């Protein structure tokens, strides 16, 4: 139960962060962009709690249910968990940079410039967040399908 609750926190928090990220990119004014990006920080504890709960209770379940620790689906889940966290962290740093630029512009006239437009549409920075979401989705597929179990 705690493992599944953790998974709901992890995926739910990631969905909420994704929604707020999309809203920040579509905002008309830099002050609104900065506000949506600041709100992402309020859902980060939910993602962190879910992330650690899924790992800790997941490993506990593997032990309790006598699954082999080196089964393909368990190794794949741990690799995807690490990947999702690393990519999510990199995407978060990109959003922090965008937030700082948006806050600076909001204080100086509140009009968008090319610097903010470029960082909000930066494919590499955005790819980190979307790939983190993809890794989380694949983690869910792996947990339900259990290939090799």
């Amino acid at each position, binding site marked *: 139960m705690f493992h599944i609750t953790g*998974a*709901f926190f992890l*995926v*739910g*928090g*990631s*969905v*909420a962060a*994704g*929604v*707020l990220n999309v*809203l920040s990119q579509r*905002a*008309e*004014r830099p002050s*609104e962009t900065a*506000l*949506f990006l600041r*709100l992402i920080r*309020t*859902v980060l504890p*939910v993602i962190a709690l879910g992330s650690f709960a899924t790992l800790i209770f997941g490993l506990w379940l593997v032990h309790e*249910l006598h699954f082999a620790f080196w089964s393909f689906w368990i190794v794949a889940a741990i690799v995807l968990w690490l990947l999702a966290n690393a990519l999510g962290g990199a995407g978060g740093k990109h959003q922090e940079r965008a937030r700082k630029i948006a806050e600076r512009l909001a204080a100086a006239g509140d009009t968008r410039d090319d610097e903010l437009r470029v960082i909000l549409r930066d494919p590499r920075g955005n790819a980190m967040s979307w790939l983190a979401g993809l890794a989380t*989705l694949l983690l*869910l*597929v792996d*947990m*339900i*399908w*259990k290939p090799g*179990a």
Partner: protein
Amino acid sequence: VIGYSRPFFPLFLHVLGAMTLVGAMLAVIVLTVAAWRRPEVAALRRAAFGTLLIVAIPA
């Protein structure tokens, strides 16, 4: 364990839909609380309603 006894795809969609709904409602709560604290920012109210319509209801 639950996955063993059920077909994969319906169960996957069911769980994904439930998780997306939780995430959408979390986003709506965060946006609504922010809109309540800063009533002068209309974008927050629009975003909360849009999230409910586009993400939460389809989930």
